[in-house]
């Protein structure tokens, strides 16, 4: 670590070279340069970041780079191998796999991000407030969280998904039920994590200082403590995104996700099982797509943890 300081100088140079149009823009450039500098400290994080950047780019650009309508069937071209026409071949109904992967990924990533955001929005204030007020409030609040955590693995989602089916919810409503189920399921974990960090944080001097100048409890908890416990939450949320994607894929693999013909990695994989012997490639692509996405989130989360908590990185 002899050249610890040299990248710092480099980033200072970048800020000087950046057009100082407005102070706000400059601040943004500095913080981006800082983030990039931090990111380069961990190879894991960097690889994860690049993989995620590609993934998000593909999700955003889907309408442009998809070559076919993802649900358009073509019986003449069933189970076609990869070609210039169909980059990854076609599935059992002659639908273009490449386009289906793109559209399916866009939906899957959107669901995961919404679900994790919902979980954080519910769980973090809950945990912060419970732990900040402490005492009996904390005990009762955490018992409730324990009750929710007691639900094993998939079962909570299965209940929600069954309800969605029985209410005959379709399309976006079905996805919203899924999002809220996954969000609720993340809530207890987010709450516990936030609570644990707040327990440490609230002993610190700056909290004492805020109290001395007469800040209200609510304002101290949410405006002073919350910003200081963000890093473990970000790491956890990143890893959770990968996990949520696995769960959604598993549910639709079981046939409990969005009904066909919506492109979906899990259900496409399930449908491809019947052609495993004759056309194993159809099952390979959605599987690889899931692996890639989950791996990207895991790598980025792992690397981020090393960057934000250097003590752990030495392990």
């Amino acid at each position: 670590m002899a050249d610890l300081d040299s990248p710092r100088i480099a980033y200072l140079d970048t800020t000087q070279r950046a057009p100082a149009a407005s102070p706000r823009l400059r601040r943004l450039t500095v913080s981006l340069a800082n983030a990039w500098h931090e990111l380069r400290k961990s190879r894991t994080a960097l690889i994860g970041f690049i993989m995620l950047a590609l993934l998000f780019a593909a999700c955003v650009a889907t309408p442009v780079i998809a070559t076919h309508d993802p649900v358009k069937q073509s019986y003449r071209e069933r189970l076609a191998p990869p070609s210039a026409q169909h980059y990854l071949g076609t599935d059992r109904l002659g639908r273009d796999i490449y386009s289906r992967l793109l559209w399916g990924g866009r939906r899957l990533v959107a669901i995961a991000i919404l679900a994790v955001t919902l979980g954080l929005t519910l769980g973090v204030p809950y945990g912060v407030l419970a732990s900040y007020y402490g005492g009996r409030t904390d005990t009762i609040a955490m018992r409730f969280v324990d009750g929710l955590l007691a639900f094993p693995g998939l079962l909570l989602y299965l209940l929600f998904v069954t309800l969605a089916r029985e209410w005959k919810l379709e399309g976006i409503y079905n996805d919203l039920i899924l999002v809220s189920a996954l969000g609720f399921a993340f809530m207890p974990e987010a709450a516990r994590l936030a609570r644990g960090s707040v327990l440490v944080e609230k002993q610190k001097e700056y909290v004492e200082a805020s109290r001395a100048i007469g800040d209200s409890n609510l304002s101290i908890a949410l405006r002073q403590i919350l910003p200081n416990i963000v890093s473990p939450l970000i790491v956890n949320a990143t890893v959770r995104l990968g996990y949520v994607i696995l769960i959604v894929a598993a549910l639709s693999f079981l046939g409990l996700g969005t009904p066909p013909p919506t492109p979906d990695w899990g259900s496409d994989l399930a449908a491809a099982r019947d052609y495993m012997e004759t056309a194993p490639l159809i099952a390979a692509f959605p599987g690889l797509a899931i692996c890639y996405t989950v791996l990207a989130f895991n790598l980025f989360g792992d690397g981020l943890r090393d960057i934000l908590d250097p003590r752990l990185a030495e392990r």
Partner: protein
Amino acid sequence: MLAYILRRIAYLVPVLFVLTVVVFTFVEMLPGNIIDTLVGTEGNNDPEVRKILEKEYGLDQPVYVRYAKWLYRTMQGDLGTSLVTRRPVAVELMSGIPATVYLAVVGISLSMLIAVPLGTIAAVRRNTPIDYTAQVASLAGISIPEFWFAILCVLLFSLYLGWLPSSGYVSPFVDFWGSLKFLILPAAAIGFRQAAYTTRLTRSSMLDEMNKEYVDTARSLGFSERKVIFKYTLRNAMIPTITISGLQLANLLGGTVVLESIFAWPGVGRAIFEAIIQRDYPLIQAGVLVLGVIVVTINLLVDLTYRLLNPRVKLG
């Protein structure tokens, strides 16, 4: 310790309360009610008949009374009757438990057999090719969806090589050696995936322990490296590993739905999955409840074991 155990058991009450409320609410929130089903089959939509039926099934009472009655029946072991098979739900679920336990226990044992040596070696030989391989393998293991991994295993070992059956189940009590053939693929699918988590955990807790002062003391006293690692650090490092494996076991007992349906393994998970497909609500309700109770109980046992293994943890 006794006071602590009692307090932990008392903590279960609110947890179980939340669990029962959620499970009860689930059935309450289903569209329509049992009267529709009954009346529908009779082709009789007379309001008088509905009233009588409602009274008979207690649907004219407020929600909390019905919850209390349902809870009372449930605690007596009456979980209702399956709508599909017309057998008591308790019987349906019990018949799945041996298969699920068999799979989960073997899967977790396999996971620990892989993860503990691998994690230990990775920590001891830190920053060597062995370590990197272990880390990459475990990261890959975490990222591969279990159902895809299972399908790939079936493709390789059943379809191409023809060594193992692709699905099915034979009870180990009927034919132990015969049952192994069916067990290998699902157990390996579970084992490898869980091992991916456990390896990372074992590695990092080994590294944690190896940085502690007692290790330096042991070394300076002239103990061999082998003795330091096996007699001292590994023992301490195993505490979190055992805890996590216990939690994984609890989760597997409730969460092998996907693998059980891929391998046609007649366990509780598959029973619940089929109940969902066939809209067998009493079975879904009771299944989730029973599995939830099992998970809570195992979590408690794991927690108590953890305190026993690690007396330094303050009882709190």
